[in-house]
């Protein structure tokens, strides 16, 4: 229903808000399906950061959508036929969460039973994400890095730290300034908690990086972009993003020196489980650093720009 409203509305501001609500409902749906880590990430990224970034984009593109140039009949037919074919293809698939399905018989029992023993982290999702499927997570981190690269190549971050501090219109609100000043340290502390507690509870590198960036975005929104760029210069962000990916790939390459496989954390310490612990922690750190710097870099790239009339 929300998706239908998003399609029909022309006012992009309302569309962005509805997207935020849609992400929030999806996060609640994930919670209902007992997928806490996924819900956490969806809420942090979808209902939090993406809304702010899309609102920043609206300053560049303008507020309302142009009327489409062609009629909707032909696209509707194409979408209906493709959708029907896809639905027909899923009729043969096993039910969601069916324990007898082949996907749940192959490696899932091993992850569930051996995860806490082999990897040593009570959070099974972190064990799968960082250790059993660490290669995929390395791919995800590189994808985030590439996306940030693309935004930086297309837009670039304006170097205006030498300019006079521009007055953010929100600076006049005393209540906002005081509350935000006391909240930002708590947000950053919470991000660090989520980062390092991801082994035991819901959390991990992606959520922590996003929340950490949110603290700085909040600062930039209330106190102005020039001040924020003085606090975290954009050049640091370039280096930090690359460092995060380097940490992850470095942890992968290190076992090669002792004859083990790529990303085999057991070779990082004398005790295999300790090695897994160390590997998971370093890898999550790399992910967190990359996500934080890319999100903040994208915000800087979009910040303070006006539409070229």
């Amino acid at each position, binding site marked *: 229903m929300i998706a239908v409203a998003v399609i029909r509305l022309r006012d992009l501001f309302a569309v962005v808000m509805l997207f935020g609500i849609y992400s929030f409902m999806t996060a609640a749906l994930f919670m209902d399906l007992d997928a806490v880590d996924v819900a956490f990430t969806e809420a942090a990224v979808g209902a939090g950061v993406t809304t702010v970034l899309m609102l920043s984009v609206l300053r560049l593109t303008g507020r309302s959508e142009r009327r489409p140039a062609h009629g909707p009949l032909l696209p509707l037919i194409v979408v209906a036929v493709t959708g029907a074919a896809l639905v027909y293809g899923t009729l043969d698939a096993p039910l969601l969460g069916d324990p007898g399905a082949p996907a749940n018989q192959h490696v899932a029992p091993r992850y569930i039973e051996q995860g806490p023993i082999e990897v040593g982290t009570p959070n099974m999702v972190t064990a799968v994400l960082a250790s059993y499927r660490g290669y995929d997570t390395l791919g995800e981190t590189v994808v985030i890095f590439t996306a940030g690269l693309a935004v930086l190549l297309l837009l670039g971050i304006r170097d205006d730290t030498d300019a006079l501090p521009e007055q953010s*219109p*929100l600076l006049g609100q005393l*209540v*906002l300034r005081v509350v935000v000043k006391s909240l930002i340290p708590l947000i950053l502390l919470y991000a660090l908690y989520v980062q390092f507690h991801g082994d035991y509870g819901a959390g991990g590198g992606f959520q922590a990086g996003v929340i950490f960036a949110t603290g700085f975005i909040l600062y930039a929104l209330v106190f102005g972009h020039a001040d924020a760029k003085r606090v975290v210069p954009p050049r640091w962000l370039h280096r930090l993003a690359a460092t995060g990916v380097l940490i992850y790939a470095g942890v992968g390459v290190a076992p090669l020196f002792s004859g083990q496989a790529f990303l085999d954390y057991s070779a990082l310490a004398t005790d295999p489980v300790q090695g897994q612990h160390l590997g998971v922690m370093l890898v999550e750190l790399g992910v967190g650093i990359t996500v934080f710097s890319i999100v903040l870099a994208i915000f800087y790239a979009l910040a303070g720009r006006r539409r070229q009339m």
Partner: protein
Amino acid sequence: MSLLVELLSGALLLAGSVLCITGGVGLLRLPDFFARVHAAGLTETLAAPLLLCGLMLQMDWSLDLLKVAMIMLFILATNPTASHSMAGAALHGGQRPLVTDPDDEPQEDKSSTA
């Protein structure tokens, strides 16, 4: 004793839900932006702690209870700030409050509509 706690928890949850619905009705039916911000901000800021207190009464003394209490404090701190900033941003953007009823007699022509 536990029956009293259960009843109290249920009453708080009920009160919180009623306030949420009231806030929603106000959000839809009030004529002006500032009136809507006022309605949503006030009712939600009270409804959320009521609901959370009702839930806290159902939990044992544990770390989760402390986390829910911290969430409540966070909502109490940020919800009024957000409403205040929204109203301030609207004023900065040029919105002005609706001071007279548009259905009044034509002699009231000093109305500043939103």
